[in-house]
């Protein structure tokens, strides 16, 4: 019947217009769930890197997450660990430093202190120079590299920018971008 199909058309057209409005309101609803500007503005932490002592783990806070800062001693840098080399197949001497952040003449491990397995906080053993995650026994070395599974990858490195002797967490500097490109961190 011609008549009823035309009626159907207008009803559908009205439904479509109402649908457009509903979708537009979904956009406003989505925006309402975005993190607030004040939350985003608070997403930057500046660390004064002159304050840390060698081989002493300090836990800072950035975006509500624990940040491990570990200043490497000369001895730690110089230690050549054959095991690590075997895991990654890279030449000795290279391996330690590429996960570290160089500020002045010092090397620092700066990572998010959450196990990449399921998010527990690993504990540091200064004698062994390793991090043990108590939840499922994951083990990391003093650069945050995994030495024993289950963690799928090394500790994640937060976005950072080097500003003289300061480190700004939350901003992406060239050193961080390079780490990301080379796949050292996610």
């Amino acid at each position, binding site marked *: 019947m011609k008549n009823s199909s035309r009626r159907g058309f207008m009803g559908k057209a009205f439904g479509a217009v109402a649908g457009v409005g509903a979708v537009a309101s979904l956009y406003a609803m989505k925006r*309402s769930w975005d993190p*607030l500007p004040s939350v985003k503005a608070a997403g930057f932490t500046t660390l004064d890197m002159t304050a840390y002592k060698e081989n002493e783990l300090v836990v800072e806070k950035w975006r509500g997450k624990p940040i491990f800062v570990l200043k490497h001693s000369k001895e730690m840098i110089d230690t050549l660990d054959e095991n690590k080399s075997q895991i990654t197949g890279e030449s000795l001497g290279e391996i330690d430093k590429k996960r570290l952040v160089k500020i002045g003449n010092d090397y620092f491990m700066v990572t998010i202190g959450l196990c990449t397995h399921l998010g527990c906080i690993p504990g540091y053993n200064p004698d062994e120079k390793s991090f043990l995650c108590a939840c499922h026994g994951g083990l990391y070395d003093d650069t945050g590299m995994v030495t024993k599974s289950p963690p799928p990858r090394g500790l994640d490195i937060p976005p950072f920018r080097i500003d003289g002797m300061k480190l700004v967490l939350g901003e992406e500097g060239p050193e961080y971008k390079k780490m990301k490109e080379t796949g050292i961190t996610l």
Partner: protein
Amino acid sequence: MAHFTKAKSLHDWLNQRLAIDTLRRVLATEYWIPKNINFLWAMGMVLAITFALLLVSGIFLLMYYQPNVDLAFDSVNYTIMQEVGYGWLWRHIHGVAASVVFLIIYIHMFTGIYYGSYKKGREMIWISGMLLFVAFSAEAFSGYMLPWGQMSYWAGMVITNLFSMGGLQLDGLVEWIRGDYIPAQAFLNRFFMLHVLLIPLAIIGLIVLHFGALRIPHVNNQDGEEIDFEAEAAKYKAGNKKESKVIAFVNDFMSKDMMVVSIYLIFFFYLVFYHYDFAMDPVNFDPADGLKTPTHIYPEWYFLWSYEILRPFSTNVGLIAFAFAQVIFFLLPFLDRSPNAVPASRRGLFKYWFWAMLIDMIILTGMGKLPPEGIFSTIGLYAALLFIGLWIVLPFITKFEKKV
């Protein structure tokens, strides 16, 4: 257990379990509405849409609102209004809808009174509607507390003080309602609970009751004509839509409803974006201060008429008059003794009663906001006396009404 066969389609599967075809027929396609109606019959749908707007905007406000006397004001005026993406939109929709919903409720009520839609089997529609009015009033009042501005605080103070019942001096009851000597943290928390949980639940339940009450007596029509719904429905189904006196709820009635809703929404969103001040009192943008009463305090406009019935009398008389005003509308179906369920224009003295009541309530509303001084207070007193008088004479003038 019923007998189930292998379903031929998802529709069939659901139909065997939920009887969706029957539901659709009973609630929509064969729910018969008289054809002889005007746009005032769409106010129910307008109210449903407004309630939906209140619910959705309220959900988003609830996610950032802090029911704490130290944080509430800033969580509304800073976090929601200035930080949350489109938070201001939710608040303006919520505030404007809370005010406009009462305008529509009053139009809906006076439509019912004018066309006699509370009579002859429709009493429960009226009573459930009045219960909804009370629930909406409680919802509006509890919501008004939440921004914790000056008007919130002082309205909370004054309204809870009403429960001391004047000369009875039930101060213990007032303290029990507040959970404190003054409106404070306990008060804010319990009114927050009432506003976001208990009263909305009651409202949703009452809406179902209100719709249910409508199903058997059917909707009234513009001329109060008694319609044989079965016979007219048969005509409609036989294809004589033009001759039938009834239409289907879906799509016939719904399409008209949507037309009215669409025009209403233009008006509504104009208020939301360009004229919201009337619904959000400027004084409530001052944070609550228990040591300083605002110069002028008055309820929101939709409570003004009953407030003005309270105000011109001494405490005890005022409270009795106020209580009278709150319950008397419930009794309308029983106070109206006339056998006629026709528009007021055809009902003799009741015609004048209707317009006098409407105008008197508008006068009470206007006077309720003004400072109680001089001529305004005198007008308010006479309008309040007239209101009471009109209800007293109602049974008498309707008893002697001629049958039409």
